[in-house]
């Protein structure tokens, strides 16, 4: 009976997740798309999702107190970077800095180093700004920059909170090793990309 219950629950979950999103005739408001665009930018653009994933793992490795304190720092950094990109001419160097963030954050996650709090917050703020900046360069192409920015911050909040919380909470040895392996993968991607430029 219990197994049947689990099966039905999983089946309903699959059904819910599998509902086709394309059946919507149109969105209620055209600019709503910018909000989701902002959220998904964090999750689906490879240049951001991998380093931010590593950043969130590093945050979790610092312990619950530091990781929790880092959340507002990260969001302020994302916001500041994006707003700076909106009001200033594009700075292409940021692209290269974000490539380096793959290596720095990936290696930090792989080593699972406990950093001094000030240093961790500095790294968090710096790379939060640079990734916010690169995301912010898209703001001019959106119908509603404010919605895109809100979505971007929501995406950052979700990614950081979930990954840092999981890293802090799941103490199983194999899981912590898996997180370090993910860090080494991110660093490896960054090394390969650096070679191209």
């Amino acid at each position, binding site marked *: 009976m219990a197994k049947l219950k689990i099966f039905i629950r999983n089946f309903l979950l699959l059904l819910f997740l599998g509902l086709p999103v394309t059946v919507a005739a149109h969105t209620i408001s055209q600019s709503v798309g910018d909000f989701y665009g902002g959220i998904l930018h964090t999750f689906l653009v490879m240049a951001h999702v991998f380093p931010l994933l590593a950043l969130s793992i590093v945050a979790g490795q610092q312990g619950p107190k530091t990781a929790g304190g880092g959340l507002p720092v990260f969001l302020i950094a994302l916001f500041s970077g994006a707003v700076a990109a909106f009001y200033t001419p594009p700075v292409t160097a940021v692209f290269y800095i974000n490539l380096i963030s793959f290596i720095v954050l990936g290696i930090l996650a*792989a080593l699972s180093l406990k950093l001094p709090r000030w240093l961790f917050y500095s790294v968090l703020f710096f790379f939060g700004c640079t990734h916010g900046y690169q995301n912010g360069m898209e703001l001019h192409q959106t119908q509603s920059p404010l919605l895109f920015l809100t979505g971007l911050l929501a995406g950052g909040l979700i990614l950081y909170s979930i990954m840092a919380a999981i890293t802090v*909470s799941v*103490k199983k040895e194999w899981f912590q090793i898996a997180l370090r*392996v993910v860090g080494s*993968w991110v*660093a490896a*991607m960054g090394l*390969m990309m650096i070679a191209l430029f």
Partner: protein
Amino acid sequence: MKTLDHLPVRRLAFLLFAVAVLWPGASFAHQETGTALGFTSGFMHPISGYDHVIAMIAVGLWGGQLGKPAIWLLPVTFPVVMAFGGMLGVRAFPLPGVETGIALSDIILGAMIAFNAKPKLWVAAVIVGTFAMFHGYAHGAELPHAANPLAYAAGFVIATGLLHLTGILIGLILALPWGLKVVRVIGALISLAGVYFLYTVY
């Protein structure tokens, strides 16, 4: 502190699998040109070359045979060293005998498993790291031609990691009474395959 260790891992795994399978295609923030092609070609590169496949599995299997900390240290360090080799490949840095090095990696890693060799950790790391350079170089040489280089790099790094994991999982049979014998036979077969690959090079 309260932990999440009590969470049912299998159910979480199912949930993640379901999300991955049913991820709606219409939710892309914007089209990243060539992402699918780049990722697929990168992912397929280590998998489609049998000489790469068995070497990656051998690394995981040998890690399992060596036990802690090698079981996690080798898969953590391998991708980074391999990426360094990849950098050389991207830059077309002259590295002679790449294919020979890859074939030798199969022979030597297979022999290590077959003879149940347990050298010091740094020796194992040097052996694996040296061969990681050759494998990385071969992957890196393809990178500039990829439709989306970042997606290609992501694809091949993830595929390589999953092959290591396959080797580690095969190594779980070491817990069985006859497990070591089977693993040593697998090592011998990997070594023999390496001899064949070396033969095809010349």
